[in-house]
């Protein structure tokens, strides 16, 4: 998918072919889900599946429209944000952080809270200092965002295969079952990442904040698989430094995260030198 997107960005035929394939696949999958869900009892799970199926069809139709138009869309730079608006966004992100932190604390104990909410706080500081004033250029930011997520899900794959939630439960004492872990990482997560990608494309604060959150999380949060979790296990169980779930791939998403950080800081410095538009 990433290679296809790369080829599409360069307007090569193989990229266009893969994009059409994705469009038809998404439309067919959405229609199939809608037809399959037409029978049986109605409930919240079916409603969610229906909404997701409709979303797939709508996104497929929009992508097809864009491919037929054979031109890239451009989003104009928004006017600078007022201090009041910046404050409101910061309060909104902080409130989301509190709610998300509460969920994590209940399900996974204090260790995931420190890693993830710490990344959110770091991301918010980064966003306030840089992209809240001049949003990241989507043409440069989105490929890195997509690459970061692709490598993150390779890492999640390792975690899933090696019982991450169970291993975290053994070191924190909080029972984080695999169902809740999967629901958070493979259902709620992608919904947020999808809207964040769209928001980043639109140069909106939400997308820019999530971009920063991922950058900090991948640089400072993911190394905990190597530096923190195994050490806690050593201290708790009196064992040596041993494998901890997700350890091998935890540093993969750090590579695009560092590139994204460099890009943001470079662009921020350039915009400061250039002065306000």
């Amino acid at each position, binding site marked *: 998918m990433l290679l296809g997107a790369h080829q599409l960005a360069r307007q090569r035929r193989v990229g266009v072919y893969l994009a059409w394939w994705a469009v038809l696949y998404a439309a067919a999958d959405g229609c199939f889900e809608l037809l399959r869900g037409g029978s049986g009892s109605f409930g*919240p799970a079916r409603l969610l599946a229906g909404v997701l199926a409709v979303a797939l069809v709508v996104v497929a139709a929009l992508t097809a429209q864009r491919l037929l138009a054979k031109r890239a869309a451009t989003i104009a730079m928004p006017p600078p944000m007022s201090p009041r*608006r910046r404050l*409101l*966004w910061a*309060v*909104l992100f*902080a*409130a*989301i952080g*509190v*709610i998300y932190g*509460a*969920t994590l*604390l*209940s*399900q996974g104990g204090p260790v995931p809270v420190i890693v993830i909410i710490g990344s959110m706080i770091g991301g918010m500081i980064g966003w306030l200092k840089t992209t809240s004033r001049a949003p990241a250029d989507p043409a440069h930011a989105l490929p890195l965002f997509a690459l970061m997520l692709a490598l993150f899900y390779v890492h999640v794959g390792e975690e899933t295969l090696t019982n991450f939630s169970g291993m975290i439960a053994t070191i924190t004492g909080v029972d984080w079952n695999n169902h809740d872990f999967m629901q958070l990482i493979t259902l709620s997560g992608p919904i947020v990442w999808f809207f964040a990608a769209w928001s980043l494309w639109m140069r909106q604060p939400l997308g820019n904040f999530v971009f920063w959150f991922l950058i900090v999380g991948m640089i400072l949060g993911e190394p905990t698989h190597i530096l923190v979790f195994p050490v806690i296990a050593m201290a708790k169980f009196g064992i040596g430094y041993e494998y901890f779930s997700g350890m091998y791939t935890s540093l993969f998403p750090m590579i695009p995260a560092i590139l994204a950080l460099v890009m943001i800081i470079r662009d921020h410095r350039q915009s400061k030198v250039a002065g306000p538009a």
Partner: protein
Amino acid sequence: MRLATTIALSIMAVPAQAHGFGGSGWLHPLTGPDHMLAMIAVGAWSAQMGGRALWTVPSAFLLSMAAGGALGFAGLNLPGTEIGIALSVLLLGTVVLFAWSAGWPVAAIATLIFGFSHGMAHGVEIHTHDNPLLYELGFLTTTAGLHVVGLVGGLLLLESSRGAMFLRGLGACTVVAGIYFAASGL
């Protein structure tokens, strides 16, 4: 009239149902879409009214929720709590849909009643938890967070060109959800 109906139905009540929140106070408001929608709608309605409503209306909800939770823990089990919660979703969605500027005293009294229903639903579950105080603190913190999300999200939407209409559209979606919850509870 709607307010009177809510009062009557909130008082007639049946024991509240859990939402698969694993016995955690923090998670209870989040795992029940009825709770979550009502709490966000309280914030959104406050944003639409502005002024003193920005803090009095969510505070009234939180205070009565704390009282409802404490009374639920003390053993008071009023019938009709679930239908009261469903109606709170329906009515809060309605006021957001029509951007009803009720004035902060009326809005605060209305949310006192709604908050009590939600508090009762949380309070009867406290017995399942080891630390009742932590449980109550948990659901109040999460509720406050949801109020802030609704309030600040509402203020941000109202600043954008078509935000007011979008917010009213979200109110309409909340009404639909409220009808669904009410129909399920009857």
